[in-house]
């Protein structure tokens, strides 16, 4: 290849290295271009990088804030969850207490009602017994009263009448 480049003017002296002047001029042009770029595009580029850095920083800050908010929200949710749990436990305990109280009250009320019913039943029984007894006594008395006139009148003969009269005279004469 080196042989070929030396022999052929259209060819470079090295298959990899440029010619010397191309290195000089190319290097100078590159430096010039880089200088221009540094002079005119540098600030813009620098500003773009700063803006990018600021944007990235802002995104990082936002992310940090979001993470803080999320963590706070997570804490709040956990707290709320804890509150819900305690509230649930409190409600369940309260419900248990109310149920127990209702049970106790219901038993007490039922016991009182049972006692009242028993007392009323006993009183009714006594009243009914008394009433029946009274009615029976009244009926016996009524029958006795109805019979006594007839029995007594029928049993009074003339001798008895005279005896009653004589007894009355004697009793009155003796000072009643």
């Amino acid at each position: 290849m080196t042989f070929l480049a030396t022999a052929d003017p259209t060819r470079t002296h090295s298959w990899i290295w440029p010619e010397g002047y191309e290195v000089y001029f190319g290097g100078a042009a590159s430096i010039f271009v880089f200088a221009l770029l540094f002079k005119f595009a540098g600030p813009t580029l620098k500003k773009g990088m700063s803006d990018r850095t600021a944007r990235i920083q802002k995104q990082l800050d936002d992310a940090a804030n979001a993470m803080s908010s999320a963590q706070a929200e997570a804490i709040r949710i956990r707290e709320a969850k804890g509150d819900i749990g305690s509230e649930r436990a409190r409600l369940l305990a309260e419900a248990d207490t109310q149920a127990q109280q209702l049970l106790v009250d219901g038993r007490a009320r039922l016991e009182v009602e049972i006692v009242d019913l028993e007392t009323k039943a006993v009183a009714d029984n006594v009243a009914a017994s008394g009433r029946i007894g009274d009615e029976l006594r009244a009926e016996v008395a009524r029958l006795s009263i109805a019979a006594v006139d007839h029995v007594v009148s029928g049993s009074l003969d003339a001798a008895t009448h005279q005896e009653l009269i004589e007894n009355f005279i004697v009793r009155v004469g003796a000072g009643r």
Partner: protein
Amino acid sequence: MTDQRIDGYARALFEIARAEGTLDTVEDELYRFARALEGSEALRNSLTDEQIPASRRQSIVEDLVGGSASPTTVQLVSMVVGSGRGRDLPAIVDSLVARASSAKNLELAEVRTAVPLTGDQESRLAAALAAATGKSVNLKVVVDPSVIGGVVATIGDTVIDGSVRSRIEQLKSRL
């Protein structure tokens, strides 16, 4: 009828009976008749019914007591009934008996029995009542079947009840 008119009739009957000399008998017969009149609604209605002529009412009286009472008693009752005062006859007779008792200085004692008393029983009963009350009594005996048995004596406000009826009533009260 006013008390004054009743007293007037009683005084008239009293004077007539006393003039006839049968005061005790008439007084006793009138008293019995008055009690019988009180006890019989039918008799009372018959003798006080203004629709029945006075002569008819008087003939009822004569038929009723003519055979068992003295003529003076029959005539006096007939007179009262005929004058339309039959309803007031018991009050008139009560006034007459009170007047007679007062005239004889006796206390009226009404005695009700279920059966008639004998004369001896009446005498002994009058004596017993006099001893019990400390007053001489003008005994008037009324046969009242409602007494059932025994005797009920009423002297003024005092009642001595020895009747079977009262004992039955006491028994009924206890029952």
